């Protein structure tokens, strides 16, 4: 199918308006069904037994007493999930993470599971399972895990990416490097050099809805799975592979999703629920507790980062270098690699080098968290950039403008940029009233920039036109924050009809072709591209049908504002035919009218943001309040501006939580100390000010409407913006995230004592 994805610069009728979302009423009346809101007749309650040890060999599991308990219908261990991964190392890691095979690798690692007639029986059954552990030394800190004496988490891992294969196994799974030019020479040309080390602690996406699913495996080998996920097609692939099923035999329906932010991109409980259902011969509902979500889903990496940047007196950066160490949990990942790619992506640099190290630790398997890996790298780099500006004696915004990447710049991770928004966001910040507002005592202002790639990927959309002329749009990217509204706007725009004439749904895996998951800010970007393509395919059919109704050549029929119009003098007496009129006749003109689209959405435009933040620090307690916050970000084109603002505000709020209070706290015993909302401390309503937003629209040349992803970039600058603000308010450079009150107070005291 010939689809031209290039930006066309058209005028919009629907896109850019702010209608109420199609799924809204269900969500304000309590009718919307999320993961845990679905039940099946005869369903059992599933519960998972988890390791209390950070690192231990599982010598033996005795499930006989649990199996003997009345009301228990199935008990499973790793033996019930045999290894069918056929040498696929990444899938094997997922399998091992779902159910520990020989070793428990973190506090909370699943070791067995039960299905019983009710929750009470299931809980009792877990207590009756006897696990014989041989406890091993553990390591949870990223720097300690890299030390030579560190306990080895996996003795088959030899660091990849070194010139020679190392002789010894290591917790470092991979070294990766990016950059160009000669940093040594660049630093030689610098008048000022700033060199600093930073740490960030591990955080969790903190979605309010715990993971939940209902699995029903039939004796004929088919199965249904209802689940809250960011990607039901991916879940289907993974579950089918792990259970030895054909993908088409497993129908996965994505429920409404109560937040994901990257955390619902991996299977944890779903293969377990399916295995329990298979063994019990009944549907099984498995819902994680909040404690399990923190201990056993996928938080982001903890990091340790060294940054060195040099510049001339005139404010030109001559060289930039960073070493980034990211924890991956007990399985290999690509988190440091992504961090190393993003670290200096905002800048135009002749000499740049970044090196990333993936580090295994006895913590849960790291998962994506909104622009994964970028916020920590940005924190380190943007803190150093601020300090360097200070040393040179140049305004931090001006300094960044002078070194900002632009169209044609070779990025620090390789590709050459097209039209990009870093310069415009900086100019907007420079001219923003926020930058000129006065500050009071103990207050400080900070700003910082951030970058995210944005993804595209495999996408499939069905657009069906009913005989009454109403349109149903079936998409395969899960709606995490209003994409059904934005995709309806796009379809309405393309067809030239009213938004209310459409209804968008997220189709299940048996009703639509494969879609990659909603991650990488790809939902609206890629599904809008497929929606445009599907609508254009439908329009082609609509034109054909109109031509048939008029008995003229289709070449003489064009589509204008929701109508077929006959062009040419000889058709002067023909009126327009509306979509409704053509649809009404579809039964006699060739049957149902539909447009389909299957494509790989290439060319997701990179995204940049610049944030401004004012804080007030209590110098006697280290308490910090964010008193004003502004987000400026390039959206390419804001399809539904209210939901774009929502993405900006939400990312900023998560960044504020990360910057100030959120962290995984492990005890010396390797157990997570704060596995609950009370002590994990995500921001509450009274912690935050209004979050101002400014949407810039620098069209993405690779999308018909110029759309770029908008979901993730907003979490990249906050750590650094707040760190710069706190450092300015407290008079001391903060290098450890979160900047919790004890850390700030200790830094102030240390500074006072010199």
């Amino acid at each position: 199918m010939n689809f031209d994805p290039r930006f066309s610069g058209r005028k919009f009728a629907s896109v850019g308006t702010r209608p109420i979302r199609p799924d809204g009423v269900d969500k304000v009346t309590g009718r919307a069904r999320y993961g845990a809101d679905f039940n099946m007749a005869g369903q059992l309650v599933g519960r998972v037994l988890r390791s209390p040890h950070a690192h231990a060999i599982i010598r033996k599991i005795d499930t006989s007493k649990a199996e003997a308990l009345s009301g228990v219908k199935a008990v499973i261990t790793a033996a019930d999930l045999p290894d069918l991964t056929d040498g696929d190392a990444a899938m094997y890691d997922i399998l091992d993470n779902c159910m520990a095979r020989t070793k428990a690798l973190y506090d909370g690692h699943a070791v067995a599971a039960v299905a019983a007639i009710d929750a009470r029986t299931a809980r009792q059954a877990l207590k009756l399972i006897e696990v014989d552990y041989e406890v091993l030394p553990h390591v949870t800190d990223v720097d300690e895990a890299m030390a030579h004496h560190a306990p080895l988490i996996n003795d088959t891992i030899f660091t990849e990416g070194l010139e020679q294969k190392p002789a010894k196994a290591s917790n470092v799974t991979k070294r990766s490097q990016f950059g160009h030019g000669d940093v040594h020479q660049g630093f030689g040309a610098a008048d000022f050099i700033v060199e600093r080390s930073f740490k960030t602690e591990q955080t969790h996406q903190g979605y309010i809805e715990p993971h939940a699913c209902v699995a029903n495996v039939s004796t004929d080998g088919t199965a249904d799975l209802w689940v809250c996920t960011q990607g039901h097609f991916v879940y289907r692939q993974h579950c089918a592979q792990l259970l030895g099923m054909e993908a088409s035999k497993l129908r996965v329906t994505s429920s409404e999703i109560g937040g994901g932010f990257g955390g619902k991109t991996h299977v944890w409980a779903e293969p377990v629920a399916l295995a329990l259902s298979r063994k019990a011969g009944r549907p099984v509902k498995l819902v994680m507790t909040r404690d399990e979500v923190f201990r056993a889903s996928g938080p982001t990496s903890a990091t340790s980062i060294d940054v060195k940047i040099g510049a001339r007196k005139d404010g030109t950066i001559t060289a930039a270098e960073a070493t980034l160490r990211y924890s991956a949990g007990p399985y290999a990942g690509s988190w440091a690699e992504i961090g190393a790619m993003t670290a200096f992506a905002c800048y135009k640099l002749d000499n740049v080098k970044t090196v990333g190290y993936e580090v295994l630790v006895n913590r849960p398997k790291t998962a994506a968290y909104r622009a994964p890996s970028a916020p920590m790298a940005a924190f380190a780099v943007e803190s150093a950039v601020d300090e360097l500006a200070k040393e040179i004696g140049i305004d931090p915004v001006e300094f960044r403008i002078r070194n900002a990447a632009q169209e044609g710049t070779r990025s620090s991770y390789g590709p050459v940029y097209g039209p990009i928004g870093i310069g415009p966001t900086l100019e907007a910040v420079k001219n923003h009233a926020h930058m000129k507002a006065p500050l009071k005592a103990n207050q400080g202002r900070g700003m910082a920039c951030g970058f995210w790639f944005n993804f595209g990927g495999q996408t499939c959309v069905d657009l069906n036109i009913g005989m009454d002329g109403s349109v149903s749009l079936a998409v395969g990217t899960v709606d995490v924050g209003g994409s059904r509204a934005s995709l309806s706007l796009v379809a309405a725009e393309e067809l030239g009809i009213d938004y209310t004439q459409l209804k968008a749904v997220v189709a299940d895996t048996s009703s639509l072709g494969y879609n990659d998951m909603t991650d990488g800010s790809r939902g609206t970007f890629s599904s809008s591209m497929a929606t445009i393509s599907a609508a254009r395919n439908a329009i082609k059919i609509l034109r054909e049908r109109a031509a048939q109704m008029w008995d003229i050549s289709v070449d003489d029929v064009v589509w204008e504002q929701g109508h077929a119009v006959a062009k040419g003098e000889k058709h002067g007496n023909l009126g327009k035919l509306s979509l409704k009129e053509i649809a009404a006749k579809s039964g006699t003109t060739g049957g149902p009218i539909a447009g389909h689209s299957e494509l790989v959405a290439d060319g997701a435009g990179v995204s940049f943001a610049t944030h401004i933040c004012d804080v007030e620090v209590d110098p006697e307690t280290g308490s910090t309040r964010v008193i004003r916050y502004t987000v400026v970000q390039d959206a390419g084109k804001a399809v539904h501006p209210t939901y774009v603002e929502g993405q900006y505000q939400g990312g900023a709020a998560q960044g504020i939580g990360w910057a100030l209070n959120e962290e995984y706290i492990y005890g010396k015993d390797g157990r997570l100390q704060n596995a609950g909302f009370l002590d994990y401390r995500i921001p509450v309503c009274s912690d935050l000010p209004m979050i101002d937003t400014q949407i810039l629209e620098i069209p993405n040349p690779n999308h018909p409407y110029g759309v770029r992803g908008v979901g993730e970039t907003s979490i990249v600058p906050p750590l650094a913006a707040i760190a710069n603000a706190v450092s300015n308010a407290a008079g001391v450079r903060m290098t450890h995230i979160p900047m919790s009150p004890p850390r700030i107070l200790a830094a102030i005291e240390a500074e006072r004592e010199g």
Partner: protein
Amino acid sequence: MAGVAVSTTINGDAVEYLCQPDEPLLDVLRDRLGLTGAKEGCGTGDCGACSIILDDRLVCSCLVLGAEAEGRRIETVEGMAHGDRLHPLQQKFLEHAALQCGICTPGFLIAAKDLLAKNPDPTEEEIRFGLAGNLCRCTGYDKIVRAVQDAAIVMKGA
């Protein structure tokens, strides 16, 4: 374990159920009565997603036993709209896009309803502190606060 027989009033309707002595009211609402508007985000009173109004008092239904509801009056999100007419808070949440994923929305609506019943003209700070028991991870609260402010204006005029 002996079940406890309970007669109570939910959204104006007389309701009877049998529950276990240690069963949270949230589980009774969701699993026994099919009222899944109240959500379990934590089960420990830290997120507010299960907020209900119990005899004019805002509470987390995860911190109330089903057995305690005997003779009481319960309001849940399912009772907020009158027929097909949405409550002004529901309408304003839609108009302001005060929800993204929507899992926290029922709890916020109930908490905001209680807030405005006790303080019809709250300041931004009073709204923020009044809703501090409800966690939202998507919106940064900005649009929620604005929706409540707007609903307060509408409700005062009504």
